[in-house]
């Protein structure tokens, strides 16, 4: 009993980007506690943006000066490997530009506890109330995303899943307008998210029962050495899969996505649709490649079915949508399906790093375009807030050609038209998949891309070739932040579509050593 307990070694240097974001979140809570109401936002904005920028700088410093670590950090709990550094960088870039959108005052509720439409709410609006807690909450969510994508241990992964999700559940309910819809989205997301976390946890327990460890590398080696416990393993893996597929919004676990994306404040939707998706794919890759890589013959058929279903459901249901945010949500589901093709296309080390590099590049291109598209959505408004209904967008190209043009460009990028980043994103995922023997999936992917292109083009036609409605929405003069987001996103979509090689090389380099165990 008296054996000395060895102090664990923790590589603080490698974990610094994440610690910085979490630290800034804690500072944010302190600001909420101590700073006077009128100063809070003025302090939050620089703290938040600087911490995200600082974390990004630390990642570059780590990659350039110290190189990519060869061993998992913090006693094997967190793997700061090449893919993790790349994914961290992508998440931080997306979080930074989403944060510029979140800065826009007009998106968040004045008094969340007030009943929608009640006198209390009117009072709070009149007094200019605001929930500046949005900043620390978003930072906690972003920190959770960083941890989720780099967890090398199912237990840490679960903690990260909750740290990422709980603030998002709350943020979803804080939309300034259409309060009931927003609260409905929040409750739906919370209940379904908690339910899927339960699946993940139960799967983790069963896999632990099989392997005797929650360490991803340990599970991988247990696959070869443990015999006769297959049912534990298979049921456990299936349940883990349910939890992870829910987070990426793969069919048949996609039902929450349109409702939540529509109801949540649009800047939060942008953060969820980009950052959460990136982080969740990091976790999916780690679980299915690192822990279950040798089991790929068993999970691949199921993943095929899920990927096909996801692409088809996303592309076909998007056609019938009449709300722009719901349409983008279904588009996000379809894109999750395209990304799953990359997850399936495993093989030898070279094949794996090709697929991984494609996924990394796709995540970046899709994320940036998504934030840009939602930024445009925040700007098209009528009396009741954002003009979500597609019919309201008719003729927008005649009223404000520039904005409509940029939005059309984002839609073309989603569709994967050449000279946009989306084209190279799709190519980077589909090409390794063909060489990895997933030709059938790629065919489905290309067909659903074509179906998806139909409804993207339909919106473009609506914007440019329809007569504007008499009392159509106005395009709000963007705040500096919103204008910056649209500009950055449009620029990135062009640059990555015309001159993608440097970033492709970077993704190749990040993926070359694959995941460490």
């Amino acid at each position, binding site marked *: 009993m008296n054996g000395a*307990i060895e102090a664990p070694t923790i590589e603080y240097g490698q974990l610094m980007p994440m610690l910085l974001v979490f630290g800034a979140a804690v500072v944010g*809570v*302190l600001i909420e*506690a101590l700073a006077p109401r009128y100063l809070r936002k003025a302090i939050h904005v620089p703290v938040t943006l600087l911490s995200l920028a600082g974390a990004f700088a630390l990642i570059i410093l780590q990659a350039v000066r110290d190189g990519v670590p060869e061993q998992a950090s913090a006693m094997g709990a967190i793997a700061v490997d090449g893919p993790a550094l790349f994914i961290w960088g992508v998440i931080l870039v997306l979080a930074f530009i989403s944060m510029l959108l979140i800065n826009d005052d007009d998106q968040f509720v004045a008094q969340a506890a*007030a*009943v929608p439409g*009640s006198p209390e709410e009117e009072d709070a609006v009149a007094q200019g109330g605001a929930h500046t807690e949005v900043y620390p909450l978003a930072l906690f969510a972003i920190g959770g995303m960083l941890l989720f994508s780099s967890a090398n241990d199912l237990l840490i992964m679960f903690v990260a899943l909750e740290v990422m999700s709980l603030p998002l559940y709350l943020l979803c309910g804080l939309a300034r307008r259409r309060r009931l819809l927003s609260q409905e989205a929040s409750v739906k997301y919370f209940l379904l998210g908690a339910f899927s976390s339960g699946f993940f946890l139960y799967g983790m327990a069963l896999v632990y029962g099989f392997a005797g460890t929650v360490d991803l590398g340990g599970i991988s080696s247990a696959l070869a050495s443990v015999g006769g416990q297959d049912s534990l393993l298979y049921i456990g893996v299936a349940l883990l899969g349910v939890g992870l597929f829910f987070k990426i919004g793969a069919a048949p676990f996609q039902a929450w996505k349109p409702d939540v994306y529509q109801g949540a404040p649009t800047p939060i939707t942008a953060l969820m649709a980009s950052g959460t998706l990136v982080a969740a794919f990091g976790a999916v890759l780690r679980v299915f490649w690192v822990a279950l890589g040798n089991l790929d013959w068993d999970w691949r058929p199921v993943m095929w079915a899920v990927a096909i279903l996801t692409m088809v459901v996303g592309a076909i249901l998007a056609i019938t949508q009449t709300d722009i945010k719901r349409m983008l949500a279904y588009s996000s589901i379809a894109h999750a399906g395209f990304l799953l093709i990359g997850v399936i296309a495993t093989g030898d080390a070279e094949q794996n790093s090709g697929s991984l590099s494609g996924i990394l590049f796709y995540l970046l291109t899709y994320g940036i375009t998504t934030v840009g598209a939602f930024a445009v959505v925040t700007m098209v408004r009528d009396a009741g807030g954002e003009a979500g209904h597609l019919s309201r967008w008719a003729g927008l190209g005649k009223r404000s050609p520039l904005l409509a043009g940029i939005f059309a460009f984002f839609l073309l990028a989603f569709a994967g038209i050449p000279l946009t980043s989306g084209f190279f994103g799709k190519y980077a995922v589909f090409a390794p998949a063909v060489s990895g023997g997933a030709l059938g999936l790629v065919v489905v992917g290309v067909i659903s891309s074509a179906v998806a292109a139909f409804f993207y083009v339909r919106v473009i036609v609506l914007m440019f070739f329809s007569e504007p409605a008499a009392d159509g929405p106005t395009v709000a003069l963007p705040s500096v932040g919103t204008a910056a987001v649209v500009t950055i996103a449009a620029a990135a979509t062009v640059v990555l579509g015309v001159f993608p090689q440097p970033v492709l090389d970077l993704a190749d380099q990040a993926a070359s050593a694959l995941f460490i165990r």
Partner: protein
Amino acid sequence: MELYLPILVLAVLAGGFAVFSVAIAPFTGPKRWNRAKLDAYECGIDPTPQPVGGGRFPLKYMITAMLFIVFDIEIIFLYPWAVAFDQLGVFGLVEMVLFIATVLVAYAYVWRRKGLDWD
């Protein structure tokens, strides 16, 4: 299977006790009518009349319960640390100080935002 026999016996005993207690109460307990007995149990919200249109209702009990959980978790971590303090050394001390500081931040937030005021 024998390994699980004590658990089974315990479950039967516990279930039997619960059924026995409920079944015996109407015969042995005094029957004194009291309006409070018909109210919902200790949830902090008056069940009737509901505020108009759903309205706002006080969350005092819930906030107290939430704070209890936060500090309860803190204590749960403090106990093993205190017991193994000598062996954990400086590393344990630093980590614990960090942990307590983080909880303190949450405490400061609740305090400043009047979460500890009852009325």
